[in-house]
């Protein structure tokens, strides 16, 4: 099934979906496994598996460091694929996506990378440094393979640009909620409502809102305005400070009360 369909189906059961993120190999694949188990057990819908790259230009200091620490352990792209296959097999209730930077895809060749991504049971890819202008063959291949190719909206995108971008991707649209790189600032920008309204007007695809969401209040605020909340650096920080065991209760707390079927 195509990811957008899957997400729409899930939205019949709950008012907002949740996507989490982790950097593969940080602090270790073993810890990643423990974290994913808890995410899956607590009803996370999508998980971004970030294949580390040493120059993650869309990421803030927390994820940058996680990328570099992971690389220092000597992790390979092959290990990431093997691990992702294992996760996809074990947790079919979760839609896993690869997130990485374009050179990782380019080095392997788009066809190989995307073909294998499909083959191991992932739902799509998120490549933040590949704009549609440079990614025509990637978008085309993703479509052919039935993989989601995630595109981005930002508060500074014009509505015309939003329509143009969304028309080229599929799965969902990643709406950058705040200025700048991930993991900065703690309050949702007050103009988010108007922004998400603009996003909604530009596409029928589900909207995932990311970059900085870390509390239950953030998620409540998004419910009704977007289809999926994205938790990025919050879980990485949690694992850093309290170990992988803290992720389960954190996710449960985020979703408590928001998992009831939509009132219809």
């Amino acid at each position, binding site marked *: 099934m195509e990811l957008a369909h899957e997400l729409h189906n899930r939205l019949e059961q709950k008012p907002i979906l949740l996507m989490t993120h982790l950097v593969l190999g940080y602090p270790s694949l073993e810890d990643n496994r423990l974290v994913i188990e808890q995410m899956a057990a607590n009803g996370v819908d999508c998980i971004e598996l970030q294949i580390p*790259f*040493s*120059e993650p*230009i*869309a990421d*803030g*200091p927390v994820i*940058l*460091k996680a990328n*570099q620490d992971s*690389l220092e352990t000597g992790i*390979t*792209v092959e290990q990431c694929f093997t691990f992702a296959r294992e996760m996809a097999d074990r947790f079919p209730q979760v839609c896993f996506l690869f997130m990485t*930077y*374009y*050179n*990782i*895809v*380019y*080095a*392997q060749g788009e066809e190989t990378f995307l073909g294998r991504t499909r083959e191991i049971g992932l739902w799509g890819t998120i490549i*933040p*440094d*590949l*704009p549609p*202008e*440079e990614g025509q063959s990637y978008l085309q291949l993703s479509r052919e393979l039935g993989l989601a190719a995630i595109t*981005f*909206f*930002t508060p*500074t*995108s014009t509505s015309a640009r939003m329509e143009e*971008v969304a028309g080229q991707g599929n799965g969902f649209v990643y709406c*950058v909620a705040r*200025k*700048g*790189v991930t993991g*900065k600032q703690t309050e949702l920008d007050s103009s988010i409502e108007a922004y998400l309204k603009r996003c909604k007007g530009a596409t029928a695809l589900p909207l995932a809102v990311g970059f900085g969401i870390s509390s239950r209040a953030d998620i409540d605020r998004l419910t009704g305005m977007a289809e999926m909340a994205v938790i990025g650096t919050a879980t990485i920080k949690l694992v850093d400070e309290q170990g992988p065991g803290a992720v389960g209760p954190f996710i449960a707390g985020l979703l408590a009360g928001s998992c009831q079927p939509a009132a219809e």
Partner: protein
Amino acid sequence: MSKDYSRYPHQYPDATGHFGEFGGSYIPPELQVEMDKITKAYLTISKTQRFIEELRSIRTHYQGRPTPVFHADRLSELVGGAQIYLKREDLNHTGAHKLNHCMGEGLLAKFMGKKKLIAETGAGQHGVALATAAAYFGLECEIHMGEVDIEKEAPNVIRMKLLGATVVPVSFGLKTLKEAVDSAFQAYLKDPVNSIYCIGSVVGPHPFPMMVRDFQAVVGIESREQFLEMTGELPDVVCACVGGGSNAMGIFSAFLNDPVRLVGVEPGGRSLNLGDHAATAAFGKPGLIHGFKCYLLQDEQGEPAPVYSIASGLDYPGVGPEHSQLKDEERVSYGIADDRETLDAFYQLSRIEGIIPALESAHAVAHATKLAKEMEHGSILVNLSGRGDKDLEFVTETYGFNMEEAEQKLSL
């Protein structure tokens, strides 16, 4: 010559910043919005008479341009073969070519109403030049620099601080130029409205490779005229060191449409094993780093490789997109000078001509002497992109005061 350069540089890059398959803009959308603004501002403002006149005046009265072209008579005689000429960018204010694009970028920032200049630096040359531009224009300045380079290039760190810049040490990864770029990008993304990122070379997303080249073109324009006036003809070879490739693009740009052989010189470092050099055009394969496509030293997984050069300003795993295209078109050839040859040239030029070159520029001199020997006659114009003051302590403490001492250290 395969390609038409008759209207160069207007032909390249195309409107979206591509030099053939290279260049472009591989960046997150938030950053793209800012790059689009810079591109638009650059393409309009830099063509106005006001901007051109102010920059020309700065070039003359502040930078001390034109810098001379000097016939290295004694070096040429010692080496034998072709005559070696030096474009004396070491005499440009602040001691290197970097100020050429920093004054341009600073002036653009002023016209755009920006408050702060942000950049990375390797050897510190770009940092000093940008701090100078910031002081001149009354702007704030924040320079990101790897801790390894801070240690190695102490005099430049002092200069930047005296000029009023904030130097931000970068302590992750190899703590050199590549990490400094990451750190500077992050800082820029925090406040792209009031600040402007001034990349240090002809690298990064569009419009930087174009803009930096255009501001550096003054080197080529001057030296072509000067060489013609001095000798009545064009040089047979133009030679310049290449890290990111800004000084090389600057001088090459004026000769692309001439029957002149253009040679870029990359650092061969300690050996030609991956990790021991930064000879990107020679050994890289196409890839992406810092928002653009270029030849890239990388492992089979696509991870940029660690690089090394005796010259901090050259240890970058990528190379300018235009260099990447010029290599593919075979319009420019890329040679290599290793640490030993570079040191030899460093000591030799100091003794023979009384010019202490930057270690970066010494790579170009080293390769030029090799070329001169191969050529029975003719002429080579070398871009002596910077002076060696910044390297004195490092070179003398690590390698001593002459090649005999250095050979002993190198063989350890």
